[in-house]
């Protein structure tokens, strides 16, 4: 049996499964079974047919030959030598008569000299059998009978009907070959119909066998496929993150081996994932705990920095510098710890949105006012753009971006609020500066934590977490943010926020924020590489 080339199917997509694979395997099994069954049935039938046919025909021809021989033996000795045509005719008639039951046609040849008879002519006569035909003696038969003087017979096919030809040389009483040969032809249709019956019996038997085969094949397929399906579903569950999925191990066949191996794999996977999660949550808790522990001493220090600042003027210059330094760095440390805490909250998924219906332009204006930036920043803030956002978080975002633009970019810095286009429910806030722009190599990393664009940069700019926190805040709203360089120079940060956040007031879990989509209005400077930045920040925060 030629097997179809086994194509290893690609790993099925886990969700939705792959009926193709199941169908394929089942079909292959059924076809295989069918082919094997058909082949064996056919072979058996063929061999049986041949054997039976041969046996049947053998028997009937043996009987016929023996009959003929007996008849010839009883009639031939009475033939005068040389026989006349009349003698031969009467012999033929007698022989035919004796073969009534057999309906054979006889022709008698006499190759010796005789009276007025055509030599070597096939005797044509109309016998009384319905199965009369020309007795055509094949040459081979003729030769073996007349040259070698042995009786011979041959089965021939005449217009689809099987006939038996028998050639019988008549020996003289002293055993020498005579010139007389008897030929008989008789139909084998009765035997043939016996054989036919055999064949049709075989045919009739074959169909149920094949049906049974299909049923068996389907059963076998099911036996194989059910564990396979179970395995597929289990793999799917594992892929969905249900690492406690296990298969039932039944029996001791290959499927059981496979199931056992699968279970081992799942167990290992579960262990290592648990370990990873433990390590991760430990490190997160550590970061949170550290920042939390730092707060208490910082609270004590921060409370008294005012005192230091006030009194610094009345101290000697060195001490005054030292005191101012301590005060200044305490403030910085406090901000850094604050940022770390904020990041830990985002990481732990504990950052909650407190949405409020606000005038966005007004909120941004207040952010600028609170930090005394009105003079340094040009603001285009259309009135009456209302949105449901968390104003505190929006303040953090805008303050971070504007502060960033003022520190690292160059003045003038512009803040532009774009009212949502009619029909869309997203508002854009653009913060652009007039500085040298962002190095293309840095661009993908601007939102990374602690990423320093310039390694030689003074450390005094902030915690290095500002942009990362800004991005997290935007994502918490279900928005996105990107950085790019303006064609006319300077960097531009764009915040894209939905007017309404679906999960209002729900603490956002780490997977809820949509990945940044690139549905930006046409004409925006393209910044594909920004996605890298967005993604890396996102990857950092996703568990």
């Amino acid at each position, binding site marked *: 049996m030629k097997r179809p080339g086994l194509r290893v199917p690609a790993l099925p997509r886990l969700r939705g499964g792959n009926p193709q694979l199941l169908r394929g395997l089942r079909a292959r099994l059924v076809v295989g079974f069918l082919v094997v069954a058909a082949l064996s049935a056919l072979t058996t039938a063929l061999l049986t047919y041949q054997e039976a046919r041969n046996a049947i025909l053998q028997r009937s021809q043996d009987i016929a030959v023996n009959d003929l021989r007996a008849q010839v033996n009883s009639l031939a000795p009475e033939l005068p030598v040389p026989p006349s045509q009349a003698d031969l005719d009467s012999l033929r008639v007698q022989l035919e008569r004796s073969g009534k039951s057999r309906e054979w046609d006889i022709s008698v040849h006499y190759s010796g000299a005789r009276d007025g008879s055509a030599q070597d002519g096939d005797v044509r006569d109309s016998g009384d059998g319905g199965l009369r035909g020309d007795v055509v003696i094949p040459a081979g038969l003729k030769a073996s009978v007349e040259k070698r003087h042995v009786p011979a017979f041959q089965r021939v096919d005449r217009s689809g009907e099987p006939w038996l030809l028998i050639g019988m040389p008549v020996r003289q009483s002293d055993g020498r070959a005579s010139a007389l040969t008897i030929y008989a032809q008789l139909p084998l249709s009765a035997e043939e119909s016996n054989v036919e019956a055999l064949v049709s019996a075989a045919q009739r038997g074959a169909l149920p066998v094949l049906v049974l085969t299909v049923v068996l094949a389907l059963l076998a397929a099911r036996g194989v496929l059910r564990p396979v399906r179970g395995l597929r579903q289990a793999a799917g569950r594992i892929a969905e993150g249900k690492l406690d999925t296990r298969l039932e191990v039944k029996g001791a066949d290959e499927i059981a081996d496979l199931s056992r191996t699968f279970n081992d794999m799942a167990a290992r996977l579960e262990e290592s994932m648990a370990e990873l999660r433990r390590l991760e949550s430990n490190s997160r808790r550590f970061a949170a705990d550290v920042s939390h522990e730092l*707060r208490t001493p910082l609270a004590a220090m921060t409370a008294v920095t005012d005192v230091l600042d*006030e009194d610094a003027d009345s101290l000697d210059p060195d001490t005054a510098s030292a005191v101012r330094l301590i005060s200044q760095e305490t403030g910085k440390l406090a901000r850094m710890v604050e940022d770390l805490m904020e990041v830990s909250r985002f990481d732990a998924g504990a950052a909650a949105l407190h949405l409020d219906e606000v005038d966005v332009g007004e909120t941004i204006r207040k952010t600028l006012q609170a930090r005394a930036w009105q003079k340094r920043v040009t603001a285009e803030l259309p009135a009456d753009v209302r949105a449901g956002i968390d104003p505190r978080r929006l303040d953090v975002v805008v303050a971070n971006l504007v502060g960033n633009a003022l520190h690292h970019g160059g003045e003038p810095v512009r803040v532009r609020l774009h009212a949502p286009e009619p029909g869309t429910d997203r508002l854009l806030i653009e913060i652009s500066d007039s500085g040298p722009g962002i190095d293309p190599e840095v661009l993908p990393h601007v939102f990374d934590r602690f990423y320093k664009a310039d390694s030689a940069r003074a450390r005094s700019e902030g915690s290095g977490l500002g942009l990362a926190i800004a991005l997290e805040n935007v994502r918490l709203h279900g928005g996105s943010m990107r950085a790019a360089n303006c064609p006319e120079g300077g960097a531009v940060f764009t915040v894209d926020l939905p007017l309404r956040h679906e999960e209002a007031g729900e603490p956002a879990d780490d997977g809820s924020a949509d990945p940044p989509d690139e549905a930006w209005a046409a004409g925006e400077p393209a910044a594909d590489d920004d996605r890298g930045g967005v993604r890396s920040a996102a990857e950092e925060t996703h568990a």
Partner: protein
Amino acid sequence: MPRVLLIEDDAAVRDGVSLALRRRGHEVAAAASGEEGLEVLPGFRPDIVLLDLMLPGKDGFEVCRLIRAERQLPIIMLTARGDDLDVVLGLEAGADDYIVKPARGEVLEARMRAVLRRTALPADGTPAAAEPGPAPVETYGELAIDRAGLVVGKGGRDLALAPSEMKLLLFLSATPGQVFSRQQLLEHVWEHSYHGDARLVDACVMRLRTKIEDVPRSPRYVQTVRGFGYRFGPL
């Protein structure tokens, strides 16, 4: 100058904050635990309490509730975590405002002044003394509001309102029917300069409703306008 009771378990923070406040002319009593603070309270008679939430023994929420049960003096929570639950629980326990540590002396000062101002002046910002004669008592349904005397009564009984609750009610009822966003309320009542914590407003409204409404769940006086904010009435 206001007298401040500081309840804080960490010695360094206690000393630092006390120092900063004394420098600004406050009289400060410092307690290292809630129990100690509650003992000091009657004798010291502070104008305001600065209360750390994380305390050994009785925690800040408990102490806050115990103080509130007897007095309506301003309470500001000091919290090491801006964590949501902490703040909400503190506000529900009756605190008027909260400050996240670490905080500079001037921030502490500004917040304390804002809370204290809430009860020193009526909502319209003019000193009560400037009004000649007894101020009229406004009545809204069963509520009687005496703006000058800072007394709110209901059905003949005076209600014990915490400073922020009092000021919120005075502010809202000054213009009945007008809707104020939570941001506006934060700015006017709590004097948070920008992007304050709207939970302050929500928690305060909830506490106020439990005191003045017949059925706090379907309020009559302080109504919610979904998506916009709160208003007083219309009845």
